[in-house]
């Protein structure tokens, strides 16, 4: 497989509710699936690994070193690869060291790869330990414009717009963006779920 002009983005979303299924190998395998999904024929080493797994009675789980090696090979065939991991804090804590070490290895082997990770603030400590020296960004906070845009979009989707008092609508758009905070956005979300 060689696709030297390709820029590929592969994303995974971690979820507290899917803890049983999440391991470092399964997360990397999900990325690998996205990388090779458009590639025909499937790279030989992946097909071989599949055939081996099929021949085993219980169809063994993915082996981390094997998946990591296949992922590195696929990434190296691209011009650039962007790996996005959303909500890393929701990935099982017991498997995170394995995942960080794999990411360390991937980064070392693939200079063409960029990692985009989101998570709650405590995830910074782990990132500092495994991939020190990353650029400091301010914490993510919705801007006034973000809140205004979001509210306008939700109001537009109101199934009963004729019930909305115009003055109330104007107040919502004027006051709420000014009182913006993360916690506040959460309460707006649940409030809208109730009224809609």
């Amino acid at each position, binding site marked *: 497989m060689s696709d030297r002009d390709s820029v590929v983005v592969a994303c995974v979303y971690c979820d507290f509710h899917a803890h049983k*299924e999440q391991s470092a190998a399964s997360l990397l395998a999900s990325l690998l699936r996205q990388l090779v999904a458009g590639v025909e024929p499937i790279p030989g080493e992946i097909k071989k690994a*599949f055939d081996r797994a099929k021949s085993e009675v219980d169809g063994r789980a993915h082996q981390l070193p094997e998946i990591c090696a296949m992922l590195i090979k696929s990434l190296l065939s691209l011009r650039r690869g962007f790996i996005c991991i959303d909500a890393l804090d929701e990935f099982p804590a017991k498997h995170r060291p394995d995942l960080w070490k794999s990411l360390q290895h991937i980064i070392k082997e693939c200079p063409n790869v960029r990692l985009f990770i989101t998570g*709650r603030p405590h995830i910074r400590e782990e990132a500092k330990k495994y991939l020190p020296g990353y650029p400091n960004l301010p914490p993510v906070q919705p801007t006034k414009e973000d809140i205004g845009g979001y509210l306008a979009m939700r109001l537009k989707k109101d199934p009963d717009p004729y019930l909305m008092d115009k003055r109330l609508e104007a107040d919502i758009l004027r006051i709420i963006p000014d009182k913006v905070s993360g916690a506040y956005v959460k309460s707006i979300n649940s409030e809208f779920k109730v009224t809609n």
Partner: protein
Amino acid sequence: MSDETRQILEWLSPMAPRERHQAVREGRVDGVGEWLLRTEEFDKWHTSEDRAVHPLLLCYGDPGVGKTHLRCVKVAPFKYWKLVKLT
């Protein structure tokens, strides 16, 4: 896509990030989180292919602030759409 290819992809990962990704994209308001794309840190990380640029961009924040809706690329590359369609 051949049956075998489908089986191999399924074996690799039954996880379906495409559905989640679609839901995130549909629920996203245009322009949200654009501040990130305007930072120098993002620009360097995203644009430069220099090995000296740190490969990690970490976006952190409390629950509900919109981290999931941040964009990690300025313009979605062509193959990205292809992937979204096929995975």
